[in-house]
């Protein structure tokens, strides 16, 4: 969930839902997370989503998608709110959410790198591209870099087969990759940050 320090104004994403007291990484001010379900901004955001979707079973996936779009992932308290709204047990909401590859339960890096492993990409060396990215970022597929800049994932197919091998950074697809080109692209995204 998003937390704002009332002392210094620093805002960040709180990754551990189980603590009820956290320390602001900027000013070391102690903040009570009475928040859980009572977090005003979370409540407001979720209400906005619920207004768009009626409380019926078929709304579950669209609601999960909308919530993930809003928060970048599905924190536990968001799942609980959804369960409450649809009058489902929390386990059922988790059951559906974990079935689909799209949903994630941990925060994402700022940039999402998806390496395509479609058939065309496979025969054109997707594995090597993935290795090049892993080496460049120092993480394995499925992980996020320590500085929170990049998350690396593999996808089954992006459908740009004629440009294989392909990877997608955020919403932009990059095609006809080589190891060299891949590294340059990552550097470009890094450059934007600084």
């Amino acid at each position, binding site marked *: 969930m998003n937390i704002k320090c009332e002392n210094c104004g620093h805002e960040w994403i709180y990754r551990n839902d189980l603590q009820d007291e956290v320390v602001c990484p900027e000013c070391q001010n102690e903040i009570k997370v009475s928040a859980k379900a009572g977090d005003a901004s979370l409540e407001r955001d979720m209400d906005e989503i619920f207004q768009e979707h009626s409380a*019926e*079973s*078929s*709304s*579950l*996936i*669209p609601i*999960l*998608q909308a919530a993930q779009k809003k928060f970048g992932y599905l924190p536990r308290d968001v799942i609980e709110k959804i369960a409450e709204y649809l009058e489902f047990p929390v386990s059922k909401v988790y*059951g*559906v959410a974990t*079935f*689909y*590859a*799209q*949903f994630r339960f941990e925060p994402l890096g700022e940039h999402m790198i998806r390496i395509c*492993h*479609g*058939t*065309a*990409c*496979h*025969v*054109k060396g997707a594995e*090597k591209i993935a*290795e*090049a990215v892993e*080496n460049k970022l120092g993480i394995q597929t499925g992980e996020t870099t320590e500085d929170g800049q990049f998350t690396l994932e593999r*996808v*089954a*197919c*992006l*459908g*740009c*087969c*004629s*440009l*294989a091998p*392909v990877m997608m950074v955020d*919403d*932009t*697809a*990059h*095609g*006809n990759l*080589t*190891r*060299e080109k891949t590294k340059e692209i990552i550097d470009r995204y890094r450059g934007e940050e600084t």
Partner: protein
Amino acid sequence: MSNKNIRVGYASCGIAAGAEDVYQALVKSLKKHGLDIKLEKVGCIGMCHNEPIIEIEDEEGSYTYGNLEVESVDELVEKHLIEEVPYEEKLITSPFEEYDYFSKQRKVVLRNSGVIDPESIEEYMEKDGYEALEKALDMKPQEIIDTIKESNLRGRGGAGFPTGVKWQFAKDAKSEQKYLICNADEGDPGAFMDRSVLEGDPHAVLEGMVIGAYATGAGKGYIYCRAEYPVAVKRLGIAIEKARERGFLGENILDSDFSFDIHIKEGAGAFVCGEETALMHSIEGKRGMPRPRPPFPAQKGLFGKPTNINNVETWANVPWILRNGAEEFSAIGTEESGGTKVFALAGKIERGGLVEVPIGTTLREVIFDIGGGIADEKDFKAVQLGGPSGGCLTSDHLDLPVDYETLTEAGAIMGSGGMVVMDEDDCMVNVAHYFLDFTQEESCGKCTFCRVGTKRLLEMLEDFSKGKGSDEDIEKLKVMADKIKKYSLCGLGQTAPNPVLTTLRYFEDEYKAHLEEGTCPAQVCRKLITYTISEDCIGCGTCAEECPAKSISGESQEVHVIDQSLCIKCGACQEVCPIDAVEVE
């Protein structure tokens, strides 16, 4: 306003190749030269191998330019639009020159793709769009179904069930509420036909669905689209809104007493949801797991009501059939199967892209005449049809006509239309492993034979790729594959062993080379190959710098050496060596 108009290919693959930058550069260049020319963003033109592409049309015909870069745009504008001479450097086709990529194709489904602006309903209507719907509403529902039956249209999602018969089941089902679904969960890796249709001509799909709804008596429709296709979802949303404004969707369509509306449901990344019962569970908000049939969706489908479900390409054929007649459609294909099929041609091919050919065209025509053969002067080895449910065919099969029965007999399937070409550098054990890895990951886990069986098969293939195993293991593998096919509930499990079985059937020698000689003839399986540096090495050090495992050492200007105990066999050194001194065996 000039009589010319410019179209920029603006589908996902075009954008990935840089269409956005080219478009920006074009706008700037036209402005700089004070030219007032209509500039349009269109869907996929089909020549993905030449992206980014623009087409300039005047009364003489159209000129296509491809492989454009931002830097060449200004020169193109100056040459073609000001001096009025073609810009030869980037010219692909002109009105005076036939391009054989298109001469064997027949555009039915892709008739408007790359021609009209997919976000404009007016342009679709200029191409006789929604005329078929008007015609349909003057017909009786049974007449429409009879027309579809006569056309010999069969389901383009892969199984090839006759569409008219399916509609008949849905029409005959008695219920107050009926549903209609467009399956746009195109999940086969290596397939992008449906994406291109949705991105290039979304109204054709909508029009087909409205006609289908009128014929079967459905009141509500869903398009279940892959979440990985954001451009398609966006264009469909725009198309639905515009169709509603014009009265082609919603209450009392075209002032008749027929009402029907369409909603988009975005998938959430589960391959199994391409299976119809799993897809319906997903729309209902459940885990996308298949259930046994019967009851078939036509009796008991979405929310327990009769439901008719067809694939994107099937729907896009419907308006054409109504407009041009069943006879003309059935004349295009073979006796058993009318019309065309769209294939996504990719892999080691010279000219990859979206190809639409009459059903019954041979594989050779598609791969060599249209696709221009194998890239980089390599030899053809195999073509993989139908994605993870399909199989690999060899050069012996190149003269087979592409139709449902022939391909099934050969061990592959027509499938949804993915066609991935492989050359001598591809290892068939590795390809089988690749597909099985995919299906194993995507198995929903409901049936034991699919869940556990695919895992066991995968483990065996992993051993094979390390050179471990015997003839006996190949037999075991066949038995296991057979059981998975027999005892799985849905298409995913029933077809999962196909890539393994066809590669075994046609490339048994290659399996044997792995097991008996411990070699991988295509030099792909990492456990069976060794990289070495030859005496030709000039000692530039590029490979040592590149090696992620730091396994290469040597003095500057001297021959370098790979430490085999550290080498991870990624091949990076071979790729960067300026004089090809890295050898693999």
